[in-house]
């Protein structure tokens, strides 16, 4: 707030000792009642306003251009006189200022009066100091600052207006100064004046003077240091000590107002010390303190009523129950009658997958007893076996049967909890499924066959033995092949010693014998050059020699006495061959296949896949439609030529390799000889009706037909051409005739 005031002496402190004003207070006379209010035409706080006293010296200094010493002292709350155009407003507030003056006069004696003395300068008239007690501000020191305003336009205004301002922050209008507003000052650079006042008069530009003058002036003026130039009004102004102080404070970063008290004295408004002479110190306790509480009475009454009504009970009051709400079945697990017996439909209405009940645990056995019978207690050997087993497979779970002498010596079972836990795991983790237990009698799996008695006749008893003369050491050579003459009178055998012997069937007499070594070229035997005799056939029309490559199969024409070689190339190792009884077909068996050739057309008709690994013998049924094949892997395959290339039936009943198979030319009989020394006799009916399957029924096992020597048992079997007999030969060097008895 630029206040045009004569700067006071800067060296003087703003505050004076309190004793001083009392002395000075006499000096300025109290302002006349009418005078002070003359310029305070602005709004004023009635209670505090102090009219600005005016001296009679006003007029005297009026004309002077120098600093006017018109001073006005206004109270702190007195704001300003905004409008000074109104000259005759002096009387308006006369009463007001009067009272203020009155109070001011009365205030002289006040000890709390704070006086601010402005520095007096020698040049200037010493400013008059006014000190007032400001009523209403009991503990506050009112600092009255006197504003000194110098005006050059006193002539115009007629008197100087002095404003006492306490609040520096209040924004005042420039009183009587340049009133051009906030426009750039350089607009007036061309002019001689600086602007206009409110009344329209010009604000003259001060005379600049030359630099020397200025310097001189500065040196002359002791206040030059504190003088600032007011550009707007073109005046110089000396800063008041207060302003200087404010600047200093701002510079030093302190609170700008000198009045600000950084550390005020602590006033304890509320003290902890009880005042003995307080307002209520001697009051007695009220009556209600000694009477039963009405509120409690009401509460108890309510509770009593609730108890009577049964809304609450003592358990609730004592805190045993948290709520008086009846525990319904929905909120507790307390039992009630859940099943009433009418639940059948409910179960039927269920959807979803059927429930699978968990199987019950096995009941304890004798072995789990505390005194099991002695035979249930495991021996050391059994214990060892159990230990090797997987824990799950052990017979009694974690338990090892043990005998206790009496009940009192039985202790806790250490796996009681574990057993139960494992059961729990089974119950909720084990996947369940319904498995149909096969509850059939194992015997029902065995096919029911017609009785063997009904299928007689078949060879079932050993009747004749044809003896090969023994070697010098007493052993007999193995007989590998046997054959019967078509009329059934003669039996020929081929032994390992390379001798073919001819027996009479009826008597068993050895009629003749041929040594193949002796003959050189065999007539009836094969593999002439050296023994043993591997196969033997009456009236052979073909001959098979496995190692002979393309000449493995030879066909002999007995009537012409000529032989021919049907295959130019070998088809694997040929093991045996035979003719179709009715048609010009040749069956040639290699290791696992049987090839059927048409001899006239010279084509391959069929290739039978036996599935066997090593075929040893092949036989064709009298009807020509059925073929049996025996193999070393114990299997006998039955082929129905009408059906296909795979066997109609594969039988595996021998314990060792099959060596020979045979069909009876007339009876429905079939036989197979094996290395296990047994010969199996089958009833094998082949029906002319194509839709009926052949009936194969085992009727007899000639057990121990031949002794097993050197892993070889029965080596050959052949039927009698007319009778239900069969002849077998074996590794024990025997030839036996089996007849039906």
């Amino acid at each position: 707030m630029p206040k045009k005031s004569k700067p006071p002496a800067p060296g003087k402190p703003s505050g004076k000792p309190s004793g001083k004003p009392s002395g000075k207070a006499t000096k300025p006379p109290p302002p006349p009642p009418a005078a002070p209010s003359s310029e305070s035409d602005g709004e004023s706080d009635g209670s505090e306003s102090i009219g600005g006293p005016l001296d009679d010296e006003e007029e005297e200094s009026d004309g002077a251009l120098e600093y006017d010493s018109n001073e006005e002292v206004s109270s702190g709350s007195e704001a300003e006189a905004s409008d000074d155009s109104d000259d005759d407003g002096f009387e308006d507030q006369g009463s007001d200022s009067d009272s203020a003056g009155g109070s001011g006069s009365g205030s002289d004696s006040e000890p709390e009066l704070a006086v601010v003395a402005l520095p007096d300068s020698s040049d200037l008239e010493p400013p008059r100091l006014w000190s007032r007690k400001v009523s209403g501000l009991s503990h506050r020191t009112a600092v009255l600052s006197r504003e000194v305003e110098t005006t050059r336009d006193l002539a115009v205004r007629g008197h100087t207006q002095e404003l006492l301002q306490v609040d520096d922050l209040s924004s005042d209008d420039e009183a009587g100064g340049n009133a051009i507003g906030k426009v750039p000052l350089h607009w007036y650079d061309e002019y001689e004046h600086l602007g206009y006042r409110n009344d329209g008069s010009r604000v003259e530009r001060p005379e600049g003077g030359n630099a020397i003058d200025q310097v001189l002036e500065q040196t002359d003026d002791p206040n030059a240091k504190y003088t600032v130039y007011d550009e707007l009004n073109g005046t110089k102004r000396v800063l008041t000590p207060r302003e200087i102080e404010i600047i200093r404070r701002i510079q030093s970063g302190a609170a700008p107002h000198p009045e600000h008290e950084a550390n005020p004295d602590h006033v304890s408004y509320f003290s902890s010390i009880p005042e003995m002479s307080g307002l209520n110190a001697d009051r007695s306790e009220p009556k209600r303190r000694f009477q039963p509480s009405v509120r409690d009475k009401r509460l108890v009454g309510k509770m009593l009523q609730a108890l009577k009504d049964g809304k609450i009970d003592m358990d609730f009051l004592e805190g045993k129950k948290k709520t008086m709400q009846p525990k319904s079945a929905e909120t507790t697990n307390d039992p009630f009658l859940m099943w009433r017996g009418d639940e059948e439909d409910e179960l039927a209405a269920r959807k979803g997958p059927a429930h699978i009940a968990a199987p019950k645990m096995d009941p304890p056995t004798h072995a789990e007893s505390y005194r099991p019978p002695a035979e249930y207690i495991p021996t050391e050997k059994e214990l060892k076996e159990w230990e090797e087993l997987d824990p799950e497979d052990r017979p009694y779970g974690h338990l090892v049967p043990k005998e206790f002498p009496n009940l009192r010596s039985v202790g806790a079972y250490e796996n009681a909890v574990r057993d139960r836990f494992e059961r729990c795991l089974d119950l909720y983790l084990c996947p369940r499924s319904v498995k149909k237990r096969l509850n059939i009698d194992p015997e029902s799996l065995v096919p029911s066959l017609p009785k063997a008695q009904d299928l007689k006749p078949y060879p079932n008893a050993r009747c004749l033995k044809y003896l090969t003369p023994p070697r010098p050491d007493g052993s007999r050579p193995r007989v590998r092949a046997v054959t019967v003459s078509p009329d059934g009178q003669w039996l020929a055998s081929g032994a390992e010693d390379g001798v073919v012997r001819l027996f009479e069937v009826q008597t068993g007499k050895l009629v003749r014998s041929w040594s193949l070594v002796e003959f050189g070229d065999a007539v009836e035997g094969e593999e002439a050059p050296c023994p043993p005799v591997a196969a033997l056939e009456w009236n052979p029309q073909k001959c098979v020699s496995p190692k002979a490559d393309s000449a493995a199969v030879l066909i002999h024409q007995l009537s012409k006495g000529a032989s021919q070689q049907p295959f130019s190339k070998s088809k694997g190792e040929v093991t045996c061959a035979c003719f179709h009884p009715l048609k010009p077909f040749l069956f040639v068996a290699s290791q696992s296949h049987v090839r059927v050739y048409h001899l006239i057309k010279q084509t391959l008709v069929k290739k039978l896949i036996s599935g066997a690994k090593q075929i040893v013998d092949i036989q064709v049924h009298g009807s020509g439609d059925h073929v049996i094949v025996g193999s070393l892997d114990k299997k006998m395959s039955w082929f129905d030529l009408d059906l296909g290339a795979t066997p109609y039936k594969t039988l595996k009943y021998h314990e060792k390799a099959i060596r020979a198979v045979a069909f009876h030319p007339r009876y429905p009989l079939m036989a197979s000889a094996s290395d296990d020394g047994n010969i199996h006799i089958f009833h094998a009916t082949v029906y002319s009706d194509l839709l009926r399957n052949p009936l194969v029924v085992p009727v007899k096992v000639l057990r121990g037909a031949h002794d097993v020597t050197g892993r070889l048992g029965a080596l050959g079997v052949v039927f009698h051409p007319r009778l239900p007999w069969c002849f077998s030969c074996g590794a024990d060097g025997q030839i036996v005739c089996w007849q039906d008895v």
Partner: protein
Amino acid sequence: MGNRVKGRTKKKSIKAAKSSSMSSTRRLSRMGKKLKAGNAGLQATFLTRSACLKRLQVTLKDFRRLCILKGVYPRTPSKTPMNKKGQTFYHIKDITYIAHEPLLESFRDFKAYMKKVRKAAGKDSKDEAMRLALNKPSYTLHHLVKERYPRFSDALGDLDDALSMVVLFASLPGAGKIKSDVVERCRNLHRSWNAYVSMTNSMTKSFVSVKGIYFEAEVQNVPIRWVVPHAFTQNLPKDVDFRVMSTFVEFYEVLVNFVLFKLYSGLGLRYPVKVVEEGKDDGGISSLLRVLREGAGGDVADAIAPPPPRTSTKSSSSSSASTSMLDVDAIVGDASDADDSDEEDEAAPVASSLTEALSATVSSDGTTLVDTAAVDETPRASLFKGLTFFISREVPKHIVELVALSYGASCGWEGKGSPIMAEDPAITHFIMDRPSLPATYASHPKNREYVQPQWVLDSANFGFLLPVSKYGVGVAPPPHLSPWVDNEKEGYTPRYAEEVDKLRRGEIPDEAEDSDSDSDEEAAPEVAASDEDSSESDDEDQDEQEAEAKQTEKKAKQADDPKELAKSMMSKKAARLYGRMQHGLDERQSGIERLVQKRDAIEKQQRKDKRKIVIISKDEEDEIDMKAKSGLRRVEEKIQGRKKDEKGSSAQKQKAKRLKDERVQLNRQFDKQIKSLKKPKKK
């Protein structure tokens, strides 16, 4: 559920997935076209466990609990693709079932609640935590009981595991992971169950195993088997997950509770039974029964739930109630008949009070409960009729008491709450398990048997009173056989079972035979022994030869057997199946053979031991002598005592006869012992 695969139509149900919304014509038109994956088969019917978790949005822990409580278990799909082998599959319906379970919601509530509690605890605000504790969410399980067991018979059928579990928990220490209140509740349930079984005489089998004591009761024609662990501190393995066990027991508790309620209300009794008198209660069945009697004497009619409506299919519970009451009547009646006049006074209060109590029940609700026509005197209810057992303190009381009461005996025991004292003359059997009879017992009345607890169980299992001589004090009792084993079906009958069978048929016990045959057999074993000695070296060879010979014999037997021939004609499949079945049979047979062989060997050894020269000092001989004599004397005294009081009742005659037989037997034993003692000396 939120795990729908994008681009796949939402399945409303399995059925919808199978036969979508298409009409039949449209479906026909689509025939032969490629099916969309996941609409049928394994994918549409089964979920793996992880898929279940995802679908239900629960943790594995919660899922496990839900499965246990809800009774959901994995199932084995009929066909499992190779890449999914080893996975656990749940049926999709079962999972939907869980998804609609209110329990799932309450689990979630609890989770939220726990979060709040944790938060409060973290903030250290005690009040808040306390307030929360008051509003702890709870859930109930009885709806699951009803859901899983819609009929009472279903519940009874699944009671085996439940009872065993509850009984196990009743014997565990209530500390650590096992809550003490759970243990307490389990104990009460166990006790109530025992009381029910003994009240209704429904016990059928009992067996002391090393694993624990097995019982079987028949309730409404459903056999229920449970195990009671031996009354010692149980071993709690570290790898046992008690959370799983607790969840199971949580459900089983509720199940057993409801079943008991139903059973008790069928009897017209109040359940749960509250045992008020702290001092007299010994935790046993008898005290509970006493409370029941007192309760029944009071306002039963008000207390009991209305009896369930009778159904034609099930045996109505009310009839069973009347049966049990009448049984009690019979017991008391017979007791008063059979016992001596002075004994009767002592014995009567025990049983008669029960009768009174129960008859009071009848009278109060007479019209519904009494069915005089249906007097069903089951043999097991009358087995121990008129007998009074006294249980010595070293005997596990809970076993013997349960069995004795179930078969109609009255019971006393050493300790608090016993209705009779050890000196009581009414006591017929003193159950005892000590090496010898204490000297102080000499002052006891002489007309009682001292038997081991096994006698009670064996007699109950075999269905008649076994002779007590084998179960005397300090004697090693005979083998304890499992009543569940059907010896005939099993193919092997232990010796003792044979003996008991003979006894049952009224034949002379085998010991006499043994003594007779002893002399005959004397020579033979010696020869055998000498043979054994000589042939020790080539035992193995002999064995092999024997085996071979056996095989050949077998073969010879088979030779012309048409069955053997037919077997060769079996198809491969049938042959394999047949072989498997035969294998099983053979295994069983071999097991039996092994047992027989072992038994024979043991018996042979025993005979040998008997014959061996034993040097017995004079003192020992005397001791045995005295023992036998004292036994004789006791029997004689008993008989004399009986004779005095004999009034000519048939039961007593039988008893006398039995005792006489026993005397004869003992005499014979005595003679034999003397003989056997003298023999070696001569040698």
